[in-house]
């Protein structure tokens, strides 16, 4: 058997094997472009928030009221930043495997809403918005992030019939 025939036989075998796999790939749920954009925005928001926390923790940015941080805000942000980062990882894994994503986005929505309300209640008296510009931008853009989370839960396709 010539080399060309061997190669053809090998390609044929490969294609035959792939043809078995193709139907499985075909029935994977494909998410919409809106879903992908929203997931990107959510990832970006959380990663930027974590970066901001690292910068403040390392005293690498100015303009933060130190008294405000001493009131316990930094320790709370520390815990929340870590929890949200871990949650983001779980959410991305869930989006990849397409399992339980809606539930996770609802839970993250509730978590972010609860933390925003807590922060507004506990720390509103300690500092003015202008004294903590970076955190204020992060807090004030929270409603947009919450809208993104609800939107992504709505546009997410659970089953093949939704796709």
């Amino acid at each position, binding site marked *: 058997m010539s080399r060309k025939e061997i190669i053809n036989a090998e390609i044929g075998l490969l294609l035959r094997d792939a043809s078995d796999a193709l139907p499985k790939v075909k029935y994977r749920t494909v998410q919409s472009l809106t879903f992908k954009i929203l997931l990107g925005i959510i990832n970006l928001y959380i990663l930027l928030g974590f970066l901001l926390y690292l910068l403040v923790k390392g005293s690498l940015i100015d303009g933060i009221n130190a008294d405000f941080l001493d009131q316990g805000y930094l*320790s709370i942000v520390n815990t929340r930043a870590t929890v949200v980062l871990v949650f983001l990882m779980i959410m991305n894994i869930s989006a990849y495997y397409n399992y339980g994503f*809606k*539930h996770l986005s*609802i839970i993250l929505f509730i*978590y972010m809403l*609860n933390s925003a309300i*807590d922060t507004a209640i*506990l720390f509103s008296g300690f500092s003015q918005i202008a004294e903590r510009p970076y955190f204020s931008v992060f807090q004030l853009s929270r409603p947009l992030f919450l809208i993104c989370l609800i939107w992504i839960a709505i546009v997410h396709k659970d089953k093949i019939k939704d796709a």
Partner: protein
Amino acid sequence: MNPEIATQYYFAIKLTTVRLVVIVFGLVAYPVILSWFLKYARYVTVALTAWALIMYIEDYFVLYSMIEYPQGSSIDAVHLLRPIFIVSLIWMCFELTFIAQPRE
């Protein structure tokens, strides 16, 4: 009274007031959702469970240096019932998620 403890009581009361308002709305809306919008009951239950669990974890592991609940038999009773209430909600989530819904 120690001013620090007084501030912690004040924060706890402020936080509890907001939470109670949400709980009242939830208790009013939940039977309506269970009766007429069973399709969405699962998501509402997940949201309520997540909120109850997050509040519990945050009170004991995140906000412990900021808030302090006053002493009292009724407050102790509520604190004692919180884990039972959360476990019940988690059970409801499992029931609504994994057990087939004949009415859907």
